[in-house]
């Protein structure tokens, strides 16, 4: 049994964890004219979900599983080592330094918020393991476990936030009809479920072995270029 209500809190855009200031590449795509309206926004979101969304879902599921397995009786040094290894797997799947920095910033803020909302030994261990801030999906999965969510729920929350943040940013930047954009998100609902399912299927018995090498690493070269280009924009409104 997962904590359904906790999942809603975790995925809510009002969760005070700094997510509102990230556009996931949309601001730069808008600046370059790659996203101009709902048509290309729909393709942007679908592509983002199939790549970065799937990867974050898998990492969140893995983190959730790892946090749930956190046993206070275990040697804390082992826990620290496992979290560092999972975070390193996130690093290896994020070639763009701008994206790593954005992921760590969001992860640090989410960890800060979730440690007050759902205090747990696993979150403390994670904070100790990666003091500069874990990748966002790693923090999300750990927060999910502390809130009682299952890996599948954590994966779903990760997939969901991988598209809702950019969608909201597009509404603000392009003045799009918010209902039209939410229709796009509604159309993505089956793909969100699929991503969460695929994320969990990729886990296997990863947590028990602490081996996450086989998790998906779907890359999106355009997102990498957008993330780096965003940093060069002196008039940017969003962090990423």
């Amino acid at each position: 049994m997962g904590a359904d209500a906790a999942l809603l809190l975790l995925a809510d855009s009002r969760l005070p964890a700094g997510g509102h200031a990230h556009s996931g590449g949309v601001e730069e795509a808008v600046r370059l004219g790659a996203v101009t309206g709902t048509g290309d926004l729909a393709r942007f979101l679908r592509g983002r979900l199939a790549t970065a969304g799937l990867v974050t879902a898998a990492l969140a599921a893995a983190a959730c599983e790892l946090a749930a397995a956190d046993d206070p009786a275990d040697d804390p040094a082992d826990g620290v080592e496992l979290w560092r290894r999972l975070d390193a797997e996130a690093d290896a799947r994020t070639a763009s330094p701008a994206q790593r920095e954005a992921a760590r910033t969001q992860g640090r803020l989410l960890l800060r918020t979730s440690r007050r909302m759902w205090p747990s030994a696993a979150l403390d261990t994670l904070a100790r393991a990666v003091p500069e801030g874990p990748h966002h999906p790693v923090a999300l999965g750990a927060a999910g476990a502390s809130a009682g969510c299952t890996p599948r729920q954590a994966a779903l929350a990760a997939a969901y936030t991988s598209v809702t943040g950019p969608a909201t940013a597009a509404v603000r930047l392009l003045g799009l009809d918010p209902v039209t954009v939410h229709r796009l998100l509604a159309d993505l609902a089956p793909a969100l479920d699929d991503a969460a399912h695929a994320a969990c299927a990729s886990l296997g018995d990863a947590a028990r072995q602490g081996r996450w090498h086989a998790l998906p690493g779907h890359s999106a070269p355009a997102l990498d270029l957008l993330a780096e280009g965003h940093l060069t924009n002196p008039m940017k409104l969003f962090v990423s």
Partner: protein
Amino acid sequence: MTAVTARALIRTEAADGGRTRLETLRSDPPLTLRQTGPRRVHLVSTGAGPLRGDRLDLEVDVAPGTSLEVRSVGATLVLPGLADTPSVMVVRARVGAGATLHFSPEPTVLAAGCAHRLVVRLSLAEDATVFWREEIVFGRHGERPGRGHARFDATVAGRPLLRQDLLVGEEAVDGSPAVYGDARCVGSTLLAGPAWAPPAVPDVKRERRAVLGDGWAALPLAGPGVQVCALGADAVQLRERLRRGEEAAGASPASGPDGSHGTPGAETGGLDP
């Protein structure tokens, strides 16, 4: 037409005076290997393909202290075959301590109707150096691409450096401004080794900065490496962009054990914060 299975092997060994000797060069058609220099091997395609159902394995073993360059004579054209299963190409490369591998075959072209899986497992010793370029072209001129899934795993002393999947020909990613935009090909070059290691005492909240060009970026990784990624309208533009990125990342233009290798990373100044 029947599916083929092939296993080819390249292995170096250290000879007297710190020289590299090709210890094994085992071709297995259609994977045919030719030695074209003291430390250079060309992959020569014999026969069409790969086709659906084919399973090709190439193993590259660069012994400690040696260096090797692997290239190919022409592009690889992946075609649809009769079998239901995709064609699979697996490259496993081990690069030993102090060894250098330069791997830069010509592009892989995913012809309409193909289904191809490319798997690369690259395992580096702590102080090994690698230049690894991959280029994928979405279909021949004017045709829709077949389906492709490339998976790339690079580890350094067992630690993950880069793990990536690239999907081509899937509805969700084709034409997405988040993935390839309107590009017709995608490529990347991994430059890995001590020369591209992050500073010993990194600013925990500040990453090394990328170098960004038109359609390409040189991305410093969290570990000892830089990935150049590029998108292009055609293979010529893609190569040009990759070369610019490689140069920005500090790979000398003729880098490779037979070329004037220079000092890798000597020009990485642009990548510092």
